[in-house]
């Protein structure tokens, strides 16, 4: 398993990375490389140029800004996992991180890379959607932000164009009313999920409002279960589980049939709803 030849450039700045990526249509941005390099080794992807953004200033920051947590693209999973800022202000992400791969993978893998790679069975894209976060993108035409709900467009496809560099993600900072829930079923610890659910809500009286349920492993992208969200907001858990039949249409894969995945989605909804009701994690 040796990659096909490619050129390699260490970007000097985000602008430089954008310029390099724009110049070569088959360029790929190299961040943590934990998915990309595996596909290179297997020759499943053959970029002509790797633009290494590791070490760029300003991409590995973690900060609370204007009521949002901004996580730089190069923040490693392990770094986020150790961060007090994340633990306090983005507890959903803190809860999801131990499920991502294994220690050595989390030491290298980056938050930006997970979002940009957009594996449909990955944890972080679903967390971003559940939190109603946004993605900060630097591109040839300047900087822009894209809402999480709009960012994931298809299987391994996102709003990122060939000359775009993901700079950061932003998620609303948690407050006293924030409720989150996370659960996934995987064959073994650290595997990609067979089915997973990331959820966020706001406590309101005895109930929940602004519920966002983002499933992963059930479609081409993270999937919002909007009917179930509405039922859950009414406090109708059984109806919410039943509504998943409309919300989700998981395809069969080697491990599970779509029908079983839908059943498991219901199991996860019950577990996650309990977490949401139990209070802030």
């Amino acid at each position, binding site marked *: 398993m040796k990659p096909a030849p490619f050129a*390699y450039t260490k970007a000097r700045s985000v602008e430089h990375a954008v310029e390099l990526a724009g110049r070569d249509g088959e360029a790929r941005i190299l961040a943590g*490389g*934990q998915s990309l390099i595996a596909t290179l080794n297997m020759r499943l992807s053959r970029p002509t140029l790797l633009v290494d953004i590791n070490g760029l200033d300003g991409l590995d920051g973690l900060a609370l800004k204007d009521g949002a947590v901004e996580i730089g693209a190069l923040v490693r999973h392990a770094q986020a996992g150790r961060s007090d800022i994340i633990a306090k202000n983005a507890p959903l992400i803190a809860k999801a991180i131990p499920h991502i791969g294994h220690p050595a993978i989390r030491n290298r893998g980056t938050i930006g890379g997970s979002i940009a790679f957009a594996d449909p069975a990955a944890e972080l894209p679903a967390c971003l959607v559940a939190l109603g976060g946004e993605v900060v993108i630097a591109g040839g035409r300047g900087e822009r932000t894209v809402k999480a709900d709009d960012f994931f467009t298809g299987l391994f496809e996102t709003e990122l164009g060939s000359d775009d560099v993901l700079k950061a993600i932003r998620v609303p900072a948690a407050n006293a009313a924030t409720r989150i829930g996370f659960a996934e079923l995987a064959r073994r*610890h*650290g595997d990609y999920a067979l089915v997973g659910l990331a959820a966020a809500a706001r406590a309101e009286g005895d109930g929940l409002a602004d519920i966002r349920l983002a499933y992963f492993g059930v479609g081409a992208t993270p999937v919002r279960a909007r009917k179930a969200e509405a039922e859950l907001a009414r406090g109708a858990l059984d109806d919410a589980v039943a509504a998943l039949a409309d919300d989700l249409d998981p395809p069969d894969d080697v491990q599970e049939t779509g029908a079983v995945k839908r059943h498991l989605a219901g199991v996860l909804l019950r577990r996650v709803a309990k977490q949401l009701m139990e209070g802030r994690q």
Partner: protein
Amino acid sequence: MPHSRNIALTVNGERYEREVEVRLMLADFLRHHLGLTGTHLGCEHGVCGACTILLDGRSARSCLLLAVQCDGHDVMTVEGIAPSADALHPLQEAFRDHHGLQCGFCTPGMLTTLIEFLRENPDPTEEEVRIAISGNLCRCTGYQGIVAAALDAAKRMQAAPA
């Protein structure tokens, strides 16, 4: 060499400067350019963990790292674990005492993974150890000897901190 670069890095405390093809993985660089064949390749897609090394003190898959990415960095491999030529690290001793290895192929990755883990978790539970090595496949031991070795190494290291 097409697409090659000069790199300089430290491996097990020794500085190396080499010209490498940019597509060369760190694992192949260590094994075939530096002759440090203790780092093993079992899958080259980041799953088996046999190639795990410490990059600037943190565990990383050397099959998922380009050698050029390690320019200016510090790498530690299994060959660099023992404190001296005639002494072993407590973790190495525990592996021998608890039969934590059979064929030896996964061992370098187990050791490097556990060195980082025990540094951050000096008094782990059995379950924590099992999760910590869940990214390292061993086909021989059923993991029981490895888990026992890690737990015992933690005790030894607490009794006599390095």
